[in-house]
C-alpha cells in the first residue's frame, strides 16, 4: 500500500484503535458501567434508544445551524464594519473582548427570562459563542492588506470602497471560510450548554435526563452523537472552504 493510502486510512485506524484500547481497559480493570461504560455498552445504548437520540440530535442540529447562520450573517457584517473603519474598530474591539470573556452559560438565564426555555435560547447561545471568531477573522483579513497594494490603488485614485471590493473582501474570504470551521464547533458548544440548562429537548437535555436516571451509557451515547454531528459539520465547512477559496490553498501548494 502506498503512503498516501495509509494517510487516507489513518483517521479510521486511529479511531478504531482508540475504541479498542478503551474496550480493553474497561474489561481489564473491570470498571463499573457508571464510571466508564465500554464502547460496546454505548453501542447497545445507541441501538436501544435510537429513536430519542435521533429526535434530539435533529433538534440540536437545528438550533446549532440556526445559531451558526445568524453568526455568519452578523459576524460578516460586523467584521466588515470593523475592518472598514479604525473608529469602529477602536470603539467596538474592547467591548467585544469583554463580551467574549463572559462565559456564555452565564447568559442563558437572561435569555430564558426573555424568551422562556426551549429553542430560542439555544439558537441565541450558539449565535453568541460562534460569532466572535468570524468577526475577528474577517476583520483580520481586511486589516492585513499589503500597504503596497493599497498605495498602488490609491495612487490611481481608488476610493476606500474600491479597495475594499477589489482587494479587502476577496482576500478576507479565506479567513472567513477558515473561521467557519471553528464557528460551527463552537455553535454546538453553545446550543448544548443552553439545552443542558434550559430546554426540554435536544442532546444536552437528553443527557441531563439520562444522568438523573443513572443511565450512564445513554449519557455517553449522547456524547458520541455530538461528536459525530460535530465531525460531519466540520467536514462540510472544510469542504466549503476549499471550494470557495481554492486559490488560497493552491497558492501555498505550488
Amino acid at each position: 500500500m502506498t503512503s498516501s493510502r495509509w494517510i487516507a486510512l489513518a483517521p479510521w485506524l486511529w479511531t478504531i484503535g482508540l475504541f479498542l484500547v478503551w474496550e480493553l481497559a474497561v474489561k481489564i480493570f473491570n470498571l463499573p458501567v457508571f464510571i466508564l461504560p465500554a464502547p460496546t455498552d454505548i453501542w447497545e445504548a445507541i441501538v436501544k434508544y435510537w429513536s430519542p437520540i435521533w429526535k434530539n440530535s435533529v433538534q440540536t442540529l437545528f438550533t446549532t445551524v440556526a445559531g451558526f447562520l445568524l453568526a455568519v450573517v452578523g459576524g460578516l457584517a460586523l467584521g466588515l464594519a470593523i475592518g472598514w473603519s479604525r473608529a469602529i474598530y477602536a470603539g467596538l474591539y474592547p467591548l467585544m473582548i469583554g463580551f467574549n470573556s463572559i462565559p456564555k452559560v452565564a447568559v442563558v438565564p437572561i435569555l430564558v427570562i426573555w424568551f422562556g426555555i426551549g429553542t430560542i435560547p439555544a439558537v441565541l447561545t450558539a449565535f453568541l459563542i460562534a460569532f466572535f471568531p468570524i468577526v475577528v477573522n474577517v476583520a483580520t483579513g481586511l486589516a492585513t492588506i499589503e500597504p503596497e497594494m493599497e498605495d498602488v490603488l490609491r495612487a490611481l485614485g481608488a476610493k476606500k470602497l474600491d479597495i475594499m471590493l477589489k482587494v479587502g473582501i476577496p482576500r478576507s474570504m479565506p479567513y472567513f471560510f477558515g473561521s467557519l470551521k471553528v464557528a460551527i464547533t463552537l455553535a454546538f458548544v453553545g446550543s448544548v450548554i443552553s439545552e443542558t440548562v434550559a430546554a426540554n429537548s435536544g442532546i444536552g437535555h437528553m443527557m441531563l435526563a439520562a444522568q438523573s436516571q443513572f443511565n450512564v451509557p445513554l449519557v455517553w451515547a449522547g456524547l458520541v452523537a455530538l461528536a459525530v454531528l460535530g465531525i460531519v459539520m466540520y467536514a462540510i465547512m472544510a469542504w466549503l472552504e476549499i471550494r470557495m477559496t481554492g486559490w488560497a490553498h493552491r497558492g501555498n501548494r505550488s
Partner: protein
Amino acid sequence: MTGFVDIRNVRLSYGQAGDETLALDGLDMSIQEGEFAAVVGPSGCGKSTLMKLATGLITPQEGSVEVAQKEVSGPVSIAGMAFQNPSMLPWRSTLSNVMLPLEIVQPHRANLRREKAAYTAKAEELLKLVGLGGFGEKFPWQLSGGMQQRANLCRALIHDPALLMLDEPFGALDAFTREELWQVMRDLHAEKSFTVILVTHDLREAVYLADTVFVMSARPGKIIERREVSFPRPRSIDLIYEAAFNDIVHDLRALIAEARVAA
C-alpha cells in the same frame, strides 16, 4: 524652468510632534516631460517617501509638489506605480491583475464593460511586449518572481500613465533577469515616451536606464547631485562594460559613500 514633475523645497516628517522622524528636508528636483530620472541614495534616506510625495499619497508639511503644472493635493491618477514586491492578487488571473487599474481610473472605468475586448487585447499586447505572451490566463502564483515583476510593470502601464513610478522594481531578481528587464524597460520607455522616476540601489541600473541620476543625501534626504547621462539611445546592454559608463558609476558610488559617512 518648470518641468513635468516639480518638487520645491519640500520638508516632510513622519510621526507626531515631539516624536517625529524628519524624512525629507529642503528637497528640490525638477524632471522634464518624457525624461527618465533615477534616484539613488543611502538606505532610509527617503526615496520611497519621495515616490509617495510625487503621486500625492502624502503631502509635504512645507514646500510644493507639482505634477503636470498642477499642484498635487491628492492622489494623481495619471501615475502608474510598481514596487519591489509584485503584489499580484492571487485570486485573479495575470491578465485580470494587469487590467485592475482600468477598473479604477476614469475614463477606462466607465468604458471597461463596453469595450472589454479592446482592453483585453491591449493588455495581452502589453504582456507580449514584456515577454509574457500567452501567460495571461495563468494565475500569478504559477509565474516565477521575474515573470510576476513583468506583469507588475504591465499593471503599472495599462492605463497609459504619463508618469511611471518605480520603487526598486528589479531589486529581488537575479542578475540575468534584471538585465533583461532593463532592456524591456528601455524599449517601453522608447515606445511610449512617458516620464519615469526610478528608485534603485543598483547604480548600474540607474546609469544604464536614466537620462538623469539624482543622488540623495542621508536622512533627512535632499538632492546633493544631479548627474546627466548622455549616452545615445537606444543603448545596447554592452554599454555597461564600457569605461565611460563605469566612470559615472564610480563617481556616483563615491558620492553615496560620502553621504553615508556624513550622516
